[in-house]
């Protein structure tokens, strides 16, 4: 018996193994690559190897020892154009002036007579500033927290600790907050729309409900791009909605519904609504309607019975649906890009932009890491909630 069981377990693992290995290669490895790139900081070590060693042992306070100056002068003389260019790009994330500083210092070093190493501090006053050397140390790699801190608008200062990267301007944090705002608005509106619909559907006979559910399932099975395109057509200045509102005399001028937050939320709620309806309907159908009637017959007002009897029972479905909509919306990319304006783009847009546009892979990966961590945390919370409540979705 025991032997047979062990054979069964081996067979189970053997059945799972192909998919496990497949996802390891096509999913986990790619996602792991993002995590790796968010801490990978190789440019300075590649361009200025001796300097990187000196910077790593320097405390970051005051000015580095003379050995660092000598190492930098030597490295700058030897560095090739391509390495210097990628180092310039990396250091320009700190300060755009670095490109010019590195170029001019290298030129002056090469102009000096052979065998003589000029003092860097006399070539450019910036080499006498702690901030210049701190920026170099932050880039000394091969791994570091610079990109992750940047994605949170933070920067490590070796003299004063971690603080705001740019005083007064929280660039990436506002993108993260905007993403959360759009996702939570979408989740709340989807709940507001789904709740009455599900309450209605839960009361119908199986036949009527299944028939009406077709109107939920068809959009659900339809390509997101088709639905987004449809909203592009609907929300135009001379589109269906504006024309109808003007015909009814509600407005004189077409309202601006596209390329702003209204358009994004409308399309997102439409795309996500089925994800709210399925778990909510499942939890509403599992309720015994006699409990509500019992509360009424015992003298509870409908509102009181709703709040104390009905609501607690549908809460698992509400939580499951809301979390699901929120988590999935966090990662949206295509829909906001098509119906939103520049101020409505979500974090995925910037991840893609920094990857393919400005080629700041460290920052893109760090923003990706933040999105991934939030998503996985909420996924774990949702799994725990579902296990506790027993509402089976997905």
């Amino acid at each position, binding site marked *: 018996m025991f032997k047979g069981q062990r054979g069964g*377990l081996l*067979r*189970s693992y*053997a*059945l*799972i193994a*192909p*998919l*496990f290995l*497949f*996802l390891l290669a*096509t*999913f986990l*490895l*790619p*996602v*792991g*690559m*993002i995590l790796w790139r968010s801490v990978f900081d190789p440019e300075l070590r590649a361009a200025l190897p001796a300097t990187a060693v000196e910077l790593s042992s320097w405390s970051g306070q005051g000015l580095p020892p003379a050995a660092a100056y000598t190492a930098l002068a030597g490295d700058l003389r030897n560095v090739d154009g391509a390495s210097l260019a990628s180092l310039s790009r990396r250091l320009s994330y700190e300060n755009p002036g670095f490109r010019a500083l590195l170029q001019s210092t290298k030129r002056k070093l090469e102009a000096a007579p052979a065998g003589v190493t000029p003092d860097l501090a006399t070539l450019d006053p910036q080499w006498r500033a702690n901030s210049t050397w701190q920026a170099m140390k932050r880039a000394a790699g091969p791994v570091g927290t610079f990109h992750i801190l940047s994605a949170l608008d933070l920067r490590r200062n070796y003299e004063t600790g971690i603080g705001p990267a740019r005083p007064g301007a929280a660039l990436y944090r506002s993108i993260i907050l905007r993403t959360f705002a759009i996702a939570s608005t979408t989740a709340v509106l989807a709940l507001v*729309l789904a709740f*009455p*619909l599900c309450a*209605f559907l839960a*009361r119908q006979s199986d036949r009527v409900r299944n028939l*009406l559910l*077709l*109107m*939920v*399932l068809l*959009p659900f*099975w*339809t*390509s997101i*791009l*088709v*639905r987004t*395109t*449809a909203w*592009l*057509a*609907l929300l*135009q200045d*001379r*589109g269906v909605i504006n024309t109808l509102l003007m015909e009814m005399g509600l407005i004189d001028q077409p309202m601006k519904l596209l390329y702003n937050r209204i358009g994004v939320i409308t399309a997102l709620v*439409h795309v996500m*609504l089925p994800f709210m309806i*399925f778990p909510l*309907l*499942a939890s509403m159908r599992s309720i015994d309607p006699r409990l509500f009637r019992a509360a009424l017959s015992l003298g509870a007002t*409908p509102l009181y019975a709703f709040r104390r009897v009905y609501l607690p029972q549908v809460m698992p479905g509400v939580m499951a649906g809301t979390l699901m909509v929120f988590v999935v919306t966090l990662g949206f990319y*295509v829909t906001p890009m098509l119906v939103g304006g520049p101020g409505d783009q979500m974090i995925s847009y910037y*991840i*893609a932009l920094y*990857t393919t546009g400005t080629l700041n892979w460290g920052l*893109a990966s760090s923003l*990706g890491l933040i*999105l*991934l961590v939030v998503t996985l945390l909420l*996924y774990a919370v949702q799994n725990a909630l579902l296990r506790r409540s027993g509402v089976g979705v*997905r």
Partner: protein
Amino acid sequence: MSGIRQTPAGRFGHFGLGLTAALVLAFLMAPLIVIVLFSFKDSGDFAFPITGWSLKWYRTFFTTQTWMEALKNSLILAVSTTLLATPLGTMAALGLAAPQLPGRRLISAFLLIPMIAPVVIVGIGMYFVFSMAGLTATLPGLILGHTSLAVPFVVVTVSAALTGLDRRLLWAAASMGAPPFLAFRKVTLPAILPGVASGALFAFATSLDEVVVTMFLAGPGQRTLPREMFTIARDTLTPTIAAAATVLIAASIVLLIASNALSRPGTSSAR
């Protein structure tokens, strides 16, 4: 229910609920209906009301080489993804069905993560890794990418079908001397086949809908329907896109009918 209906306020509440439900259903269906109507509109804009009707946008769609190429590529991709994802996912679901499997919850959480992971992260990560393996801008690369997004749906649907399977049937088969494979072929497989088929439908639909991973992995010549639609929608909306959308909606209706036919009566329609 009757308790609420007795009072006038209850009757009004019931009516209000029905009206709200109708409005929400209208909100869900309106965009699909409108885009279908516009695909038959004579003039080349999306202004309302529609005055003249025509089939010319379908003629454009079915005679434009780029659209036809996109349609062909989308179908090739979706079929290949389905053929790869269905056996992989079914096998894994069968393995996960062993109730006492150590690490079962963790493994199944891992196998399902692609459903929830932000697709841009997946797309960029795949781009990094696949470009090292020379798989970007190739058909196999796209198939692998789509499969890893589609396969969790197969695992979920087959697992759901397996929970409905009465394990005593397997014990009975074994007690009568059936070797495991025979029991699988004669008992398990027929019982889970609808689940396998609806998993395959989900895989097909996922691939047909996929655009973000495609954008990162595909070469300039590798058009798919969603990618082509994205390019046009970002630029200027032409009515041909409404014809393309209608073709995809028709495909969704076919998939929906097939999936409804597969889900046996009594099971939840929520996936």
